[in-house]
């Protein structure tokens, strides 16, 4: 794989003097799905806007498909599709005209068959003659996606594509993203739903206060930072945990029939063997065992909190 987006020291300070993006260096591989996570105001939209030409950089460079986004903006932008965070559509324009308009803007000749494929894939074909103001919020977002795909981009930016979208549509969106990936489209998406990043991303970047805290393969990140938990179901509920178990990081469930133990998979030893021994020594009988990997959400919150403390 080769890098399709290469960002070097890209930075943005807005006119009011606020540095929304600290110098950022990142390269995005062709065909991957990169999810950018970060709290409100972290600088995710700023980064995307810089790459798409909506905001002028204060410093640094970026190339898309090898084309500089400033000096060779035409070639760079032809490769890029953008679905903005805010829904922005001309209310009286029909879906079909709207999608056709975008294709034209990007300098491509009319191709009705191509647009039909896109609209059908997004379940918009039946709505092609509707004015965009008559569409539901979820459908409007799909129109935005259809517009972004109208010029067959190689790189697609999705800025919070599933904000305010119901569960079904979200799953649908994930499928669309998977489809596009299968066609070789590189996708950069931002989201506040960590389960979304977990479900579809290949790599995850975390931004906070304009700074890229980390970018890592999702699996490696989960493995590296993941804590696991072991839940032990007891044969008989206990009133309290025996004194002998005080040394372990344990918690007892409400109904007092399950004990949960947190451990680090990267540690020297997990301590599971000793814990099980101690439980049996204390006279507790086990009914069942379950282990669980901690979610990306926990990792993410931990990261941002750690940084916040560092900054304070």
């Amino acid at each position, binding site marked *: 794989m080769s890098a399709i987006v290469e960002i070097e020291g890209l930075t943005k300070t*807005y*006119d009011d003097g606020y540095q929304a993006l600290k110098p950022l260096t990142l390269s995005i591989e062709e065909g991957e799905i990169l999810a950018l996570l970060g709290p409100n105001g972290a600088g995710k939209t700023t980064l995307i806007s810089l790459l*798409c*030409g*909506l*905001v*002028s950089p204060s410093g640094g460079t970026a190339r898309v498909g090898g084309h500089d986004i400033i000096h060779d*903006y*035409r*070639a760079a*932008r*032809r490769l*890029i599709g*953008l679905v*903005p965070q*805010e829904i*922005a*559509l*001309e*209310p*009286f*324009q029909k879906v079909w*005209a709207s999608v*056709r*308009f*975008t*294709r*034209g*803007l*990007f*300098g*491509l*000749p009319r191709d009705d068959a191509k647009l039909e494929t896109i609209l059908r894939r997004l379940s918009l074909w039946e709505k092609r003659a509707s004015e965009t103001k008559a569409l539901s919020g979820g459908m409007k977002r799909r129109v935005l996606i259809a*517009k972004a795909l109208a010029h067959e981009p190689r790189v697609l930016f999705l800025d919070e594509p599933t904000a305010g979208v119901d569960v079904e549509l979200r799953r649908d969106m994930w499928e669309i993203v998977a489809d596009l990936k299968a066609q070789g489209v590189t996708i950069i998406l931002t989201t506040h739903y960590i389960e979304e990043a977990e479900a579809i991303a290949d790599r995850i970047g975390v931004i906070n206060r304009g700074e890229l805290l980390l970018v890592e393969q999702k699996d490696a990140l989960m493995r590296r930072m993941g804590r696991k938990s072991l839940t032990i179901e007891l044969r008989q509920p206990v009133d309290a945990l025996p004194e002998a178990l005080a040394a372990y990081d344990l918690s007892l469930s409400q109904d007092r029939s399950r004990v949960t133990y947190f451990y680090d998979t990267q540690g020297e030893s997990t301590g599971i063997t000793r814990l099980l021994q101690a439980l049996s020594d204390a006279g507790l009988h086990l009914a069942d065992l379950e282990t669980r990997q901690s979610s990306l959400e926990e990792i993410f919150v931990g990261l941002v909190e750690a940084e916040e403390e560092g900054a304070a």
Partner: protein
Amino acid sequence: MNWHGILAIYRYEMARFFRTIIQGFISPVLSTSLYFVVFGTAIGSRIDQVEGVSYAAFIVPGLIMLSVMTQGISNASFGIYFPKFIGTIYELLSAPLNFIEIVIGYVGAAATKALFVGLVILGTASLFVDLQIAHPLAMVAFLLLTCLSFALFGFIIGIWAGNFEQLQLIPLLVITPLVFLGGAFYSISMLPEIWQKISYFNPVVYLISGFRWAFFDTADMPVGLSLLAIGGFTLLCLVIIGVIFRTGYRIKP
């Protein structure tokens, strides 16, 4: 050049125009007819002739100019302000278009609409008065240049405007007085001397005078000066638009 891009913008802008074509046709016909009833017949019957032309005919060039200027401005300013207002400007900014192409699309469409209205007025007027056009080529040139330059000016206003009030401010506060004081309905020579002097600073005087010369072969100002004024104004607008796009003024943080 991204011709498909220019065409996309032009067609989009014209589509809005065609949606309201009936209104776009009827309103200039109606207002022109009213002008003729009031100025041409009621008042004009008391004024013999101005510079050797019947008063009803005399006001035709001014009437056309007034409409063409306001139409050019309002169409172009609204055309670019609207995407800014509803947020769809992101598409223009992220497309492989340079500012010249964007301007050609928007200003071209606005100028076309202004031209349409100008021609409708000319047609309506010719039903009321017997019009002779002394210099047809010059008439067309003046008309086209005015459509173009005021559409350019409107484009600047649309970029500059931060809300709908500002969008209407300049046309209302600047253009309407300049046009009314620009000799649309009278000859500058009819004014007291001091007002004649002041009128020399009104650029619209040169436009209307030049346009009227194309019709009747008489003018308040030398024709060359009129051409210079309109040419200079067009150039100035182009330069300002160039600066706007280079600096991203009000469109690109």
